[in-house]
């Protein structure tokens, strides 16, 4: 005779009307065929608040192998057997320059520069960086602005080469000749110019939305993100859908 658990008992009581009635009217008979501890029997007889703990334990045990696998192996780390590559941060700086020619209106040009993002120990305090930028500019030019460009490489596949003929190794063997890498780029405000913390490598939260229900469905960013979803393949669609969510909540284009 199969011996069911407390979880089995609760599931059957939820789905089987006749068994439920038996559990309510004659629990001792209902317990037959179930391997229950004295405490579990007491709880199922008294049906007091402790039953909630039994239900919680049942839900915790109810994870299937597929769900456990999904929890341990989220989509973004599916290729975990490949090495992780460091991300690259660049500082994009745009400084306006005002030039005054005789007998003509002032003209504005821009000096753009791209440099490695300084590490934490090399970064200057915001006030000092602002003073330096102001000193470099003419007195009547608006202040320059800068952004962080973050490039995140992801290894998506390996490239293999067959071994040359006559090799002492098995002819069917091959060696890894290189890695196929995909890049994701995004641009963020320079935290030195704002009061915010530097952006983390985690997905940014939709801080600009005052309510989760304010969705910028008419924004160009949302429409572009939707187009990207439609153009994506099955493997990349989940990430593109998350990008669409960002666009809906912030109205900004990502990457």
């Amino acid at each position, binding site marked *: 005779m199969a011996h069911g658990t407390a*979880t089995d008992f*609760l*599931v059957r*009581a*939820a*789905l089987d009307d006749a068994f*439920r009635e038996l*559990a*309510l009217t004659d629990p001792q008979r209902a317990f037959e065929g179930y391997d229950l501890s004295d405490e579990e029997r007491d709880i*199922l007889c008294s*049906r007091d*608040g402790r*039953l*909630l703990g039994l*239900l919680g334990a*049942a*839900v915790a045990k*109810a*994870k*299937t192998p597929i*769900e456990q696998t*999904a*929890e341990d192996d*989220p989509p973004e780390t599916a290729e975990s057997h490949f090495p992780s590559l460091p991300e690259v941060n660049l500082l994009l700086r745009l400084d306006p320059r005002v030039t005054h020619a005789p007998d003509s209106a002032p003209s504005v040009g821009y000096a753009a520069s791209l440099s490695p993002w300084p590490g934490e120990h090399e970064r200057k305090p915001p006030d000092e960086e602002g003073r330096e930028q102001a000193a470099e500019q003419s007195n009547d030019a608006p202040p320059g602005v800068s952004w962080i460009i973050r490039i995140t490489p992801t290894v998506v596949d390996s490239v293999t080469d067959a071994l040359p003929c006559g090799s002492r190794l098995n002819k069917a063997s091959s060696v890894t000749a290189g890695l196929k890498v995909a890049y994701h780029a995004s641009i963020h405000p320079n935290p030195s110019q704002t009061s915010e913390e530097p952006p983390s490598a985690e*997905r940014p*939260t*939709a801080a600009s939305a005052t309510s*989760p*229900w304010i*969705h910028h*469905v008419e924004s160009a960013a*949302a*429409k572009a*993100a*939707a187009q990207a*979803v*439609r153009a994506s393949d*099955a493997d990349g*669609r*989940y990430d593109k*859908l*998350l990008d*669409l*969510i960002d666009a*809906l909540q912030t109205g900004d284009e990502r990457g």
Partner: protein
Amino acid sequence: MVDITIVGLGVLNVDQITRETERVIRGSNEVLYVDTGVATRTYLEGLCPRATSLFETSYEEAAHRVNAYHHMAARVLDAAMDHPPVTFAMHGHPTVGVFAPFLIRDMAGLLDLEVRVLPGISAMDCLFAELMIDPCVAGMQMYEATDLLLRRRPLLPDVPALIWQIGCVETSLHTMHVSKPIRFERLRSHLLRFYPPEHEVVAAYATPHPLMPSTVYRFALRDICEQAHLLHPGFTLFIPSAVERPIEDRELLHLVDSVEHLRRITR
């Protein structure tokens, strides 16, 4: 064809699923659900070839609940684009105290997918039955607990009040930890602006299983902090009206039983 149907599974595990909802799930290629009922998986697997729980992969301790909702929405849309039609099934009613369905609706609009929403039984319906409440008698004001405090919403003491999710008050982060009394101090102070300290309130939790009765705690408003260890995230607070608003339009009062008045206002 409807690509995504959003449904509610009710509160009392599988017993409160409507026939309409059951029919839709049977006709879906996949049902993705957020419901921790002990028999939910078994029941849904009997209706649909593919039943996928999103709860375990969505929520993380101390993480922002919005991240979970984003994950749910992305999974549902992903499935709908791959093998429609699909059903997204939530505990309770699918538009009460939720965010993912609204996100799905807006995303689906941009992706030219059709969405339909079916009603489900919510904790409010269970509470009306449990406490024998008729919201038509004196009305009903209802707020989510943290929103009530953030906006310092005023309450009318002559209108019964329903405060949702008191067990989750003061945080938008997911947790399974028991509350401390301090968690309810701000709520108590706010409520004491409108009700006397001895006013009896009711904290109710609709049962998720037919073997377990619903949980109802009655206590004076001033003692709410002392109930902290009992008030888990499933509780709703019902505040009966403290005073009765008198009738002011005596003329209308006389007219409501008048056949002549009825003839005058109808064709």
